[in-house]
């Protein structure tokens, strides 16, 4: 295939190492300085080092990935995503298991300190997220070989991202509301689970949006990696499905 000159070269990439070092500063070091050693300044320095490193590495990585779209394992990401989703699903299994054990052994539920929750908010959020699953599906349809429509793809992708961002916005709004009712992370066992699970789910929405951004920007100059789009879309559907569990078990059940 690629000829021997190519075969005999040791492949390299800067980004995996740089993103790892960035993560070291961004997470353990920043958290440690801030929460353990109470040195906010050092923590911000670590953030200042880690965040740009991670960002630059992601950009570099995406570029590199787009270049060897026809590399020898191109297209496999679609098959890898299900494995990743299994791992992700078990993260939520862990949180939900803890939640249910606590709840089922509690003398009464919800525990004191829990305010009345708005039921309208989760319903609206559900609609938004389901709609976004639908729009990303439309976007995917636009890059099928027969009827390739780059503009349409960008449009529906952008709509999906807006929906995702609105979802996060509502979530933030709800959190502030609850905060004003004195319902915070440490209020009781329910608030612990509530904020962890919704926050965790929200972070997954954020990751989904980041993935879409990594697709949108190159797409503007006409570069689309179909396997990558497909994987991101599968991931997005997964985030959607998890939301059903979140809503049904934290709000309605």
């Amino acid at each position, binding site marked *: 295939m690629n000829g021997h000159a190519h*075969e005999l070269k*040791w492949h*390299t990439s800067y980004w995996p190492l740089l993103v790892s070092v960035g993560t070291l500063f961004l997470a*353990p070091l920043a958290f440690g300085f801030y*929460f353990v050693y109470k040195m906010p300044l050092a923590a911000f320095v670590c953030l200042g080092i880690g965040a740009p490193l991670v960002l630059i590495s992601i950009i570099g990585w995406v570029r590199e990935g787009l270049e060897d779209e026809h590399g020898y394992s191109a297209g496999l990401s679609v098959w890898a995503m299900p494995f990743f989703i299994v791992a992700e699903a*078990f993260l939520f299994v862990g949180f939900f298991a803890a939640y249910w054990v606590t709840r089922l052994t509690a003398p009464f539920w919800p525990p004191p300190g829990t305010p009345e929750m708005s039921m309208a908010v989760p319903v609206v959020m559900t609609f938004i997220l389901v709609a976004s699953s639908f729009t990303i599906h439309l976007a995917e349809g636009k890059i099928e070989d027969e009827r390739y429509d780059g503009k349409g793809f960008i449009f529906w992708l952008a709509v999906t991202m807006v929906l995702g961002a609105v979802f996060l916005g509502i979530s933030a709004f709800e959190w502030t509301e609850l905060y004003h009712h004195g319902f915070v992370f440490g209020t009781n*066992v329910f608030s*612990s689970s509530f904020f962890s699970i919704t926050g965790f789910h929200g972070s997954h929405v954020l990751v989904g949006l980041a993935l879409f951004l990594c697709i949108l920007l190159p797409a503007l100059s006409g570069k689309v990696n179909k396997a990558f789009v497909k994987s991101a879309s599968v991931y997005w559907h997964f985030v959607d499905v998890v939301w059903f569990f979140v809503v049904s078990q934290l709000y309605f059940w």
Partner: protein
Amino acid sequence: MSSTMVTGSVDTHQASGSGFSLKEWVFTTDHKRVAVLYMIGAFAAFLVAGIMAILMRTELASLGPTVTDNPAAYNTWLYFHGAAMILGYQIPALTGFFANYYVPLMIGAKDVAFPRVNALSVWLFWMGLVVALLTFVIPDPPDIMWTGYPPYSILTGGNTAFYTFTVLLMGFSSIAAGVNFLTTIIYMRAPGMAWSKLNIFIWCTLAAFIIQIIFVPILGVAVTMLSLDKYLGTHFFNAAAGGSALIYENLFWFYSHPAVYVIFLPAVGLIYEIVATFARNRIFNHMKMVYYGIFGVLALTGLVWAHHLYIAGIPNWMVLIHVFTTLVISIPVGLLMIGLLGTLYKGSIQYSTPMLYAAGFLFLFLIGGLTGIPNAMSAIYMHLTDTYWMPGHFHYVMAVSMTTAILGGTYYVLPKMTGRMYSETLGKLGFFLFFIGVNITFMFTLLMGVKGLPRRYYDYQQFPELEWMQQWATIGSYIILLGALVVLVSWLHCAFFGMRVGPNPWGSRSLEWTHAPSPPPPGNFGGEVRVPEDWSPYGYGK
């Protein structure tokens, strides 16, 4: 046996001898070099954690203060020793180093499915190692054992956050590796490499990574909640507010029991490869071992965790179920051992260093297994738990028997990695020192357990009569250290001064030996590999 390969005219010396370039190592995405990065990290962790063991053993050698008069220092050594040995050494050595080196070579692929993700895995592992090593320089280091049980881990002034982050970084590394290797094994096999032709090590690695992607996230959740409780004021494990420390213990062991199989399966896979090669024999009931042995373990691995919690205050029905499942899971494990013996049976065994380690494995694992059966029975367990019996048992069954697999596996693969042969004299010397040392240390550890000596303590004022046993255990640990140094010297000697050998010094039938030069060039085979109908990695004509 016949096999074909498109022999492009690979000039191996040109490929391997084109000079050392740091950039090509640090930024590498090649699975063989990633493997070496894992290898360095894992053995560095082994060494540092081993030094902690020596410190602990020296401290215990006499009643009262010996190395330090500060019991908190002992806690820090113990924390680092346990966490680094499991998360930093055994798991990365087996699912990082060996998986990376072997999987593409054994299945006839040029590399893993996602080489850049692979490099990410190894570097995240290294970052986890860095956070763990910071233990030695930060104020208030973690002091929570490798298990991190609340409430202590939440109430302590020690840095529990770094425990959480060590686990999270290494956990994410494992998940990324799991996704990568499952995809690789399923989709990147060479044409003709049917499932029934896969090396047993590949099956073991596949199973280990299935366990990783399912169970690692659970541990991730547990340690995340720990730091949330400690630093952000949540109440997951706070009994006063309606939470429960038992939730942590269950989540922790829900991962950490299966983690034992993440270590055991690839280790036993390595031993199988060694035994088949050095006995010149097919694998005894190859596919039955895969279906009933490996998949048997896989099916049961998530159902036995509460055997770590018999006295933690779980309901009796749960205890009973777990007594039963724990005894049942010993059946597939026993089957895998029988498979090893069946492979040795009527083989023409040649006792080179890797084979010695395999024999050592059989012995050490036998002791470990036999001392494990009483632990499974809750009635006996009550008397043994939290005594020295437990470290005695798990050092036999996991710590040292899996280390024989790792060391033996390294000797086995060295000629492939370097194109050179190690010295048998040094190899055997290292083995015997190690083997004698571990038996002295951990026989006495078991004995002290039977006498009721509680584990995890800095001192044993109430047990002065056990001092002589402690001393023997310490002497044993010095012999182990000596053995480890000999092993290290023999590897360095091999890498730099070993005699050059051909691609297949063992006369193995497996792809990595028959088809790839030593050391393999980028792309591994210098062409496409095609596996013929009648090929088997164990086709020794028996």
